[in-house]
């Protein structure tokens, strides 16, 4: 059984070799597999809600709440400045502020990030580095507003929320292209 399956999987792997094939291997590798093994449990909506923190670029998943740069500044000074500098533009290992067009070559939210929703998502899931997951949704809106303001993407008074955050067009968005290299004798 194991031999059979592994062999089949190898054949399948060879057949779909090459990214060009728009292939979905939805059929089981061995014809006598059951349609379901019955292992695992159906997830309850509470289980899903407790883990599902993802935010899509269209704003799906953004929580309610709001915050602006002014409230963000206070939180930033208290919880972020120790590592990222007082203004965020200091030459720290993880510099957060450099507006598009300024002379610095460091990649930041202002000159490199294509979506504003990512700022919210990343701060909420991973920052502050020494206490990840400790911020409230309101605090994250405020910090997002502060960092977008400092990067000259929004003005200081804008109160960010689930509706207007995904509408922000980030300065670097226009530079993004999908990788379309597919092997073969070319260097790109």
């Amino acid at each position: 059984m194991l031999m059979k399956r592994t062999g089949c999987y190898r054949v399948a792997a060879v057949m779909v070799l090459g990214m060009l094939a728009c292939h979905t291997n939805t059929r089981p590798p061995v014809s006598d597999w059951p349609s379901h093994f019955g292992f695992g449990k159906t997830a309850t909506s509470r289980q899903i809600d407790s883990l599902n923190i993802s935010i899509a670029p269209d704003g799906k998943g953004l929580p309610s709440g709001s915050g602006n740069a002014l409230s963000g500044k206070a939180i930033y000074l208290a919880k972020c400045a120790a590592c990222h500098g007082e203004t965020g533009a200091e030459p720290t290992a993880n510099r957060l502020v450099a507006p598009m067009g300024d002379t610095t070559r460091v990649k930041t939210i202002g000159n490199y990030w294509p979506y504003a929703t990512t700022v919210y998502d990343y701060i909420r899931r991973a920052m502050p580095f020494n206490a990840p997951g400790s911020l409230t949704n309101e605090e994250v809106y405020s910090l997002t507003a502060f960092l977008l303001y400092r990067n000259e993407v929004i003005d200081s008074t804008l109160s960010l929320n689930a509706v207007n955050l995904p509408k922000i067009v980030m300065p670097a968005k226009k530079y993004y292209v999908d990788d379309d290299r597919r092997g073969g004798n070319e260097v790109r």
Partner: protein
Amino acid sequence: MTLDDKENAGKKIPRRTMLRAAAVSAAAALMGASGVQRGGQPAGGGTGKVPGVDKGTLPDANDSTQLYTDPTKITGTLPGKLGTRSPFEQPVKKPSDISSRTPLQDLYGIITPSDLHFERSHAGVPRIDPEKYELLIHGMVERPMVFSLRDLKRFPAVSRIAFIECSGNFRTGKETMTPQEICGLTSQSEWIGVMLSTLFREVGVHPKATWFLAEGSDAAVMTRSIPVEKGWKDAMIAYGQNGEAIRPEQGYPARLFLPGWEGNTNVKWIRRIELSDQPFMTREETSKYTETIRDHKIRQFSFDMDARSIITYPSFPQQVEKGWIEIRGIAWSGRGKIDRVEISTDAGKHWQKAVLQEPVLDKAHTYFRHLWYWDGKPTEIMSLAVDDTGYRQPTMKQLIQARGTDMGGYHVNPVTAWVLKGDGTVLFKPEKWK
């Protein structure tokens, strides 16, 4: 002659008795000897009291000067619970704050010992209780489900030997760099687990789903968006590595394994998969793991690892002598099999095909060798990999020409040259691009 042979040859002291007595003293000697590490523990479970043998009649194993003199005159270490490395062999990873590199120049063959597998994490290695571990699959599926580790192991399993390489795997800057320092963020294992397609069928992935989010349960709550097609094709939820459970540094108790794709997408400590009809544009696929190319463009979702090779012998800091040298190294491609490796021993003027050691596997480190007579004159040696899509490993010059001088640091895979000096010194030839 083995011990058993000796026994058969009619030694007077009953073997078991002698071994047991020696075990105690030998173990003590090993532990006492400075610089000698022992992972196993004294075998035999002996109390030291061995009927019928006076310890004084055995060689003094506590005498550390004896340890490496004549091994036939002292009973060796008895079987232990864990194997050990010879104290003369000390291959180690090279850690920084964010990663730790595989000592490529110290390895034989294509499998990376699990404790030497490179590491890269964004918020350290989490401690996860396998009993509490769960993988949630939800979003555009018929039945959102949670799988315990036990559940995952009940599904039909597969195994596959393939490399994982960090896409930021190129360092340069000075001559005194080892393969480990230049490109030690690649390692190879046999990965064992359940095909993600098996789990996709179990939950009933919606035909309109085009992407899935893979999320880790480390403090970075690492996330990457992956085309669903890869999930159906050859993705695996791996829980085994080289014959044992995946190591914590590699994602214990389970990780996503995407053969040939940049290391970061192989999300470790995976806790959640969400099917969707759009990518999530996480920080790790926008701010990081994207590369600037010509015309200010930023290239995103560069999943495939481009073909690459590195000569690991001779390399810095090794020293060679005039005469026959077997040039050795590894080559790999995230797009398929290595078709050939070309070697130049005259700074790129002429190229010859290296011998590829079987097995030559898809998306796997492949060992190559090339026998060469060095006349002792200063020269440069280098290797160039070609994969079965026809892709040729580029030079740094070709990369800069193609991507511009603002070329980012990801997916940089240049032909790497070693300079052989007249005195046999081997130095890295660093090429600048910034």
